[in-house]
């Protein structure tokens, strides 16, 4: 089996988010980017598959920012190849539809028969990447998956539904999977190994051209503060009085 794991950078919401002047996009130069955490789950799931059933594992990421460390870390964790997609315009960020458009050819060239990627990302404005990829490739597809096992020419994917219902699905290869969670948490890659990999291995690069995007953002803004919680201070009497007051105000 050949597995491709598709990763991407997303805005790090721990850091401040800066809007561009026209208010239509994030100022990519001023915000911090990090690996999409669901993609890290997909990578861990792929590594587990590789360990349990043997597979060649290629990690792919478009250079929508500094992806080197993310790719080297994936190699340090056990991926066999790391492929960086470079090209004009990628640095400004791309839509998932565009990303999928680029990836269809790349995945064909890699010869992958299974593609794993995160179930979602915090900047999915136009639907999830896994869905776009499945549509583009025309492969069998499952998403919100929380466990994958190899079974000959197919994959068994575990999917959890609301109400505690679990389904095991058989997907004939080739297949695209959107990973919600890996059975094991993403492993830790020691810094020394990442540094070692940086010295001894290099990333493969491939020139790509992104197809035109079809969606236009009209405006983007931080959520407005609505309501909020009030900490009621004071002794028991004061607290009770304040609670009574609030209840009365709300007409409850």
């Amino acid at each position: 089996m050949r597995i491709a794991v598709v990763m991407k950078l997303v805005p790090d919401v721990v850091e401040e988010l800066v809007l561009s002047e026209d208010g239509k996009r994030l100022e990519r130069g001023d915000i911090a980017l990090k690996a999409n955490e669901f993609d890290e789950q997909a990578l861990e799931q792929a590594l587990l598959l590789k360990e349990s059933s043997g597979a060649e594992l290629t990690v792919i990421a478009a250079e929508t920012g500094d992806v080197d460390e993310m790719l080297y870390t994936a190699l340090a964790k056990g991926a066999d190849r790391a492929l960086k997609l470079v090209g004009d315009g990628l640095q400004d960020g791309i839509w998932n539809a565009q990303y999928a458009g680029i990836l269809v050819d790349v995945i064909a060239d890699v010869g992958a028969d299974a593609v794993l990627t995160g179930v979602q990302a915090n900047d999915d404005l136009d639907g999830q990447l896994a869905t776009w990829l499945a549509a583009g490739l025309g492969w069998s597809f499952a998403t919100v998956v929380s466990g994958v096992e190899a079974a000959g020419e197919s994959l068994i994917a575990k999917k959890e539904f609301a109400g505690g219902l679990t389904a095991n699905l058989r997907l004939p290869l080739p297949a695209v999977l959107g990973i919600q969670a890996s059975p094991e948490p993403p492993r830790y890659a020691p810094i020394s190994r990442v540094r070692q990999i940086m010295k001894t291995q290099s990333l493969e690069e491939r020139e790509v051209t992104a197809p035109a995007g079809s969606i236009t953002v009209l405006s983007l803004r931080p959520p407005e503060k609505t309501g909020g919680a009030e900490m009621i201070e004071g002794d028991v009497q004061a607290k009770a009085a304040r609670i009574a007051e609030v209840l009365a105000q709300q007409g409850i």
Partner: protein
Amino acid sequence: MPTGTDLPVAQRAVFEGFQHSWLVPLFYVLATVALIIFFYGVYRRVGRYRAGKRATLVRGWPRRIARSLMEVLTSRRIGRRDRYTGVAHAFIFWAFGFLFLGTTTIFLDHDVLGLVAPSLEFWKGAFFLGFSVVMDVSAALFIIGLVMMAVRRAFFSTFRLSYRRVDGKQQDRSAYEREDWWFLGQLLLIGVTGLLLEAFRLIHDHPWFQGYSPVGLAVAKGFEALGMTAPSAGEAHFVTWWVHAFLALTFIAYIPYAKSVHMLASWANAAARDEKAAVVLPTQETGAQTIPLTPIAANLTWKQLLAVDACTKCGRCHEVCPARTSGAPLSPRDLVLDLREFLGGRRGTAAAAQGTLSAAATALRDDGSPLISADVLWSCTTCRACIEVCPVGIEHVPLIVGMRQTLVEEGEMDQNLAQALMNLGRKGNSFGQSERARAKWAEQAGVPIKDARTEHCEYLWFVGDFASYDPRAQRVSQSVARVLHHLGVDFGILFESERNAGNDARRIGEEGLFESLAEKNMKALSQASFDRIFTTDPHSYNTLKNEYPAYGLECEVLHYTQLLQRLAAEGKMQIVAPQDITVTYHDPCYLGRYNRVFDAPRELIRLTGATLLEMPRNREESFCCGAGGGRIFTGDSLYGEKPAESRIREAAGLHGIESFVVACPKDMAMYTDAAKTAGYEQQIAVEDVIFLIERALGIGAKTPEEVNA
């Protein structure tokens, strides 16, 4: 009794009463065999150590040997916290020493001088008389010491002598107990037969100088009262002589093969002991190593192999270890014993375990588990209490960290810990918060804080993660800033250029992360302009002071309590509001045991006017809060009871304690929680020493808002 100068010269024949001339050579043959066995055993041991890796020879051998000699001669490290055992060991040690020297003297006199220059023989006359007294008293003390040890072993239910494992593994350790008793028993028999020999000889000869053997004479009188006569004493003497000789020779022969090897290995280990063990962890150049969980000799340094042999199973480390005390599967004693058994058999006599390094790295024992389990290793708080108490100078923490490196390499760790490491790698702080938020606390300090990157300052304040991001510890930082400002200290911080100092990362076993953090900090420090550094966090303090010099840091590093102590000594601290409260103080491991800063915080507390009561475990014996060595990230896993709660209870046991004073931001977090969960929140306030000082200086009454206004 004859008196004065007409006395014959006091002396006695060596092989007195030997009727058969062939018995003397027989003794020499046996003695030679014993020595051969002894030296072969030593040779085997040394061979095992040589199978280990080279380690840079620690300098200062004359001083080391003198130090360990003093420690051994005074039984100081044994007597610490345990007078009884210290006294008993001193009796046995000194008496054994004298008796051994005595025997050697006779050998030199009789077998060397007697052959080459009989006129020089000196074992006679006044020397002989003094000798008799010393030997006689030694024999008595020897027996007393051994009986004290036996009584302790048999009747005091001393926890540390229990060999029960704490990790749930089943192991029959009765052989250890048999060995202990055999060791005691054989020594006791040697002592008793020696004394009997003396008594029988006195009954037989009744020389005029018998009074110079007071104990022997008393025993002789006893036997005579029971009806022993000179001829029967002569016969008994002959038999006892051989029993005594046989016991003594077998003892010598088996010294390197059993518990008695500690007479050699422990002393050697004490001499090789590194006073900075765990304080400065070894780097690649100084013999650092990733140690597999099932190591072979070649994975360890010769020093570590020696240490593993030197353990006397005294159990002191087992007793004080906060992990063990809290129900975790780690016992530092069992860690050492497991390594010893695996590397050299239970008595350490087997040949070096063979195998290739790469095979060893993944080797498992027969039952498919590694020798030292991940849970055992992750239980350690690196508090250094084990190293502190070990009477023979075994260094457990570097061993544990070496094996943790293997766990990190294999990614075998608690998820929270992995998250903390990833945060440290990405953001330079374990909280995973924005680098830019690092100095947010400063906005609420109410006093201006210089940017050391752009302005020169006398003191660079290395704030540290907890003091920067943890809300409870932020109050400490703000208070420190106000106090220093009040005292007119010229200080600044690195703002978002500061990174976690890496002390914990290194002790977690993530050496690469430590290096990367140290490099980043060194870069920031080299771009700032300052004369000295002080820190809030004892953990940062430890690594900056002791480990950063290897990365080029050259200036003085202080803890803030030391800085304040200096200011107090210069008379700069004007106490306007003496604090009339009773407090106790908790020594943080990395400030106290690691860096011997015990007095600065105490002096400051007294300066504020507070009354300081000491907890039973104080200073070197302080009990870890449980946060060190990365354990603060792993949560309560592996621990039954929280060490911090046990500590709060210890404090609550003191009469009238109002405040539990700390000098470490992590302690602030740990003990605030522990006081709550242990139910002492109403009774005992947890506060940093800086809060006391701020109040005493009369600047603490204001809230940050008031100061800002």
